[in-house]
């Protein structure tokens, strides 16, 4: 069933066995798993089926680094941030789950093998065929991948979702569900708890027109993403400044996001076709990307984080000052303008005429690919000082807005530098290419971190732990100190690896759905 918030009378008290707050990939994955179970499920979503600017503005906040906007790096509508994503799927690596002495605060309380079955169950959600994330499982049209030194490098492989937009893809299934109700335009503004904070009694809902309602359920799942889940927990702490439950002030700490630095480039010293598995994006009718990263043993030996580099931006020829001016002049003329500094551009073209002629020829004839740029995606170390807090500024729903105060450190820079170095070593040893590193990565200051790309991978602010005082949720993703409040989000990741988080988010969501089903079967939900 699908309804809009303005279709129910203001002041209504809704009831359900399970209330899911947030209709992104995590919330939708859980709702799908609970379809047909006999449990009454209510999924409340802030947005509608279409993008709405006023609702999106509720996401505005302050990012102290200033390099991405909080309201542009996530989306507030049914389907969540899958509304705009690249579709890159990959599981975390085994070592990502381990406690590593050289990575402070690392280690999950569960192992990769605990989540492996759920990765496989999550895979179809992304409209991807078989679950296979090892290069050995692929046929690259008879082009072998490089035989890498396992003490240095390992392959990375992403399977590409179309990319699936969870809203359009699954709305009909949930609309037809007999036990799942989806309520659109319903903004959760506060989680109510009993005086001890141990039992959640309800979720308050509002819309932008002042209408209100409340949900009462046996169990509540916060599935609002890596920032909003934390915001809701912090904003709900009427009597507990550090957040609901017994979270010891950890809510909002350990924020992580994957930095994507320009790592440099590679020039082939062998035929470009030898690199096909690394730059072609489709094999066996499936979109994939093959990359490289430090092996587990290299990470340990070098004391670095997990990381990946992948090819992007083919290099056909050498850019030149003259050709740059030709392009600028051509673009200006296309728009019917005459550039102010046209004379200087013409002079540059004349000074660099041989390069201009050569490049013009290569562009016209589409010369052979000679290399590629390298883009890195690195793990960041979990740091308690990287933190989300609430500001005194409030949004239209009277909810405090968030401030994100964080930074990327030296370990991340060294990780990318060392990864590129390992690629250079292996490409040199194999005699296939030479690598050029982005020289900012060689400077021991923070200049490298001022020109990074970000892709909205917000993680870590309600981290999972097996002990009170070390995390916000337990291994079942239940908030410590509460009996019936759960989190389904990348916010539970204690570490983030290099892998894009969405597949892991969905896997953990399905795992949580199983837990809720089992709890219901054993009567634990009713007792909450």
């Amino acid at each position, binding site marked *: 069933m699908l309804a809009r918030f303005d279709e129910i009378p203001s002041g209504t008290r809704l009831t359900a066995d399970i209330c899911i707050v947030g209709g992104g990939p995590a919330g939708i994955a859980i709702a799908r798993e609970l379809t047909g179970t006999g449990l009454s499920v209510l999924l409340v979503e802030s947005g509608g089926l279409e993008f709405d600017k006023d609702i999106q503005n509720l996401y505005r906040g302050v990012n102290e680094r200033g390099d991405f906007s909080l309201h542009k790096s996530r989306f507030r509508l049914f389907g969540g941030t899958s509304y705009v994503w690249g579709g890159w799927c990959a599981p975390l690596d085994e070592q990502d789950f381990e406690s590593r002495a050289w990575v402070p605060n690392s280690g999950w309380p569960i192992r990769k093998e605990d989540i492996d079955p759920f990765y496989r169950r999550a895979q179809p959600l992304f409209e991807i065929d078989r679950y296979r994330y090892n290069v050995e499982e692929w046929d690259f049209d008879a082009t072998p991948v490089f035989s890498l*030194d396992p003490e*240095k490098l390992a392959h990375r492989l992403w399977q590409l979702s179309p990319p699936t937009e969870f809203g359009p893809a699954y709305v009909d299934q949930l609309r037809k569900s007999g036990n799942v109700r989806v309520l659109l335009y319903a903004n959760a503004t506060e989680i109510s708890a009993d005086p001890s904070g141990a039992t959640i009694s309800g979720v308050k809902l509002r819309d932008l027109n002042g209408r209100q309602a409340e949900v009462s359920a046996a169990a509540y799942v916060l599935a609002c993403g890596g920032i909003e889940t934390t915001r809701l927990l912090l904003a709900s702490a009427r009597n507990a400044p550090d957040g609901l439950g017994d979270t010891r002030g950890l809510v909002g700490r350990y924020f992580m996001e994957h930095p994507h630095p320009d790592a*440099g480039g590679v*020039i082939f*010293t062998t035929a470009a076709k030898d690199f096909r598995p690394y730059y072609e994006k489709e094999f066996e009718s499936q979109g994939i990307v093959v990359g490289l990263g430090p092996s587990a043993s290299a990470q340990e030996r070098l004391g670095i984080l997990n990381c990946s580099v992948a090819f992007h931006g083919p*290099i056909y020829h*050498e850019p030149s000052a003259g050709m740059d001016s030709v392009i600028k002049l051509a673009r200006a003329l296309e728009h019917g303008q005459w550039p102010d500094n046209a004379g200087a551009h013409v002079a540059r073209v004349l000074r660099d005429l041989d390069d201009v002629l050569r490049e013009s020829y290569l562009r016209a004839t589409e010369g052979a690919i*000679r*290399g590629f740029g390298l883009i890195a995606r690195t793990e960041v170390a979990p740091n308690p000082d990287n933190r989300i807090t609430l500001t005194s500024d409030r949004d239209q729903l009277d909810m405090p807005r968030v401030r994100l105060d964080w930074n990327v450190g030296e370990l991340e820079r060294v990780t990318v530098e060392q990864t*590129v*170095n*390992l690629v*250079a*070593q*292996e490409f*040199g*040893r194999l005699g296939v290419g*030479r*690598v*050029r*590193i*982005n*020289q900012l990565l*060689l400077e021991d200051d923070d200049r490298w971190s001022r020109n990074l790309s970000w892709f909205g991978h917000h993680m870590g602010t309600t981290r999972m732990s097996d002990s009170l005082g070390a995390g916000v949720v337990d291994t079942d993703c239940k908030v410590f100190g509460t009996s019936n409040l759960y989190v389904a989000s990348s916010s539970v990741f204690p570490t983030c690896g290099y892998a894009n988080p969405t597949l892991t988010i969905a896997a953990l969501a399905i795992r949580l759905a199983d837990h809720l089903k089992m709890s219901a079967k054993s009567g634990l939900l009713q007792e909450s």
Partner: protein
Amino acid sequence: MRVVDRRPHRMARRRFLAGLASLPVAWVAWPASADADVTVASALRRLFNDSIDHQVAIGSLYLAKEPAEASRQWLAGHVCGASWMSSDVPVHALADRVRALRHDDFCRGDLVEIDGWLLARSEARLFALAALVLPA
């Protein structure tokens, strides 16, 4: 003695690639002589197939980074081995030696950064030797 221009400058991919062009195989007499520079120079010129500008440019950048290695004798001994002063050293043997050294460097991770390019130390030293002994 030739003055090497060691001013750092950015090196285009094209020049860099030319510098790394595969080492040709040729046979050349490498006579022992008091004028060792001439023999090393002629060997390198044959090794690089008479196209030396790019190698010299890379070598100059290496020497700017590692000024303590700016010794023809030391570099020749390191790159060419103990036999470099003896007569009749085949250039293909030198090419094989440099390839082996380069391979070992990559395996050991002994790389040097030149204008962002990550090179095997031995190939950078070969180019540095070229910068010292080959005329502009």
